[in-house]
């Protein structure tokens, strides 16, 4: 069992959910404030980290 991979999958999904929430909060134009952009940038970086963990653990 790879607990790291499992954690990375859920962390990635939860981070994507945070971006989904931002899409909802800014619909329909999706003009993000500077704060929302900064938060989304950090979230995207974190999703990349989870993908790296998955590549390392499973591939």
């Amino acid at each position: 069992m790879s607990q790291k991979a499992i954690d990375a999958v859920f962390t990635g999904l939860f981070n994507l959910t945070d971006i989904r929430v931002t899409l909802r909060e800014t619909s329909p134009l999706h003009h993000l404030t500077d704060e929302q952009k900064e938060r989304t940038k950090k979230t995207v970086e974190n999703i990349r980290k989870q993908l790296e963990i998955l590549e390392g653990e499973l591939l």
Partner: protein
Amino acid sequence: MKCAGQIETRAVEESSINLDPIQAAGRLTPEAMKAVIAWGDGYSVCDNCHKPFRLDYVTKPPIADFHTEAAAWLGMDQIQLVPGARRAFQEVTGALVGKGEPVIMTGMGHYTAYLSVEVVNGVVREIKPTPDHHITADAAAESIENAIREFGYAPKLVFVDAVDFMYGNMHEVENIAKVAHQYDIPILYNGVYTVGVLPVNGKKLGVDFVVGSGHKSMAAPAPSGVLATTDEYAEIVLRTTKIQGNLTGRKFGIKQVGILGCSLMGDPAVGLIASFPRVKERVNHFDEELKNHKIVTDALLSIEGTKVASEYPRKHTLTRMDTAESFDIVAQTHKKRGFFLSSALNKRGITGIMPGVTKQWKFNTYGLTTAQAEYLADSFIEIAEENNMVVG
């Protein structure tokens, strides 16, 4: 984009401002959205179900704690998770109403409340709404008196909607409860548009049952809801099984009869619980929701001929507009007829208003940001101006 087979991915909330009156306060919180990812498997909440094997005793996830906290939050003694408010109605009528027995209901009640009486072969006697679409204690007393004359005994239950689905008007629940209790009739507070949206305290209101809808107003997946009651009525309505198999002698522990055992599992249960901390907090900020709502109603009222059909000033974010003298006049000659309004809104990324309707229509702004409310207000004005309507 498909999410599976022929099933479209639903992205209404991500792509649009959704004004559907029944959907607004049921949109999931971020916490619920994450919880449903992890708890979607059928019997997921049963991973840690131990003796006495009942849903409200499960501590992982914290379903037991939810029951304690939610009952206190609603000012009631006990609570039960239910698969939608309608099942709570059914559970109460199932315990209190017999064949041919009368139940008092507001003339503005949800159809499922009526059906919950029909399913036990009860009889509905309505409270007549006032011309301005309110349910009053005086009218309730009159209906009760009429029912007593007709049946020879007091009705078995009074249903009252805190906020009705037709106009989003608030009704005088506290006074109606006092009237019901003068006749020793239990009263059910239908809080599907209030529980999870604004503060509700059943004890202060003097009601015997508080029913809330998870998917309508508690940011939870469907079907979900709560039935809260007093210790007195819990003994009857939330009673535990006593049945025994005649050949096998089987018994079924402390399962609750009225809801046929464990009531709500998987995503609906965990989603509702995950949203609960935020829901408890958000009810304290309903004034902000009303401010955003006012931005939109003010814009609509600036369009000549437009009226608010609901009570005004607004006390709830679900509102019925009367545009028979504004948008409907445009519809009479527009090439898209009555569909011009929903079509123009859709072009601007706004959905949820019934297509083709321009005389009277409902919308709900609950949960919108101020920026979204302003965009919505500007959009209505733009549509009016595009169609040569007078704005000012």
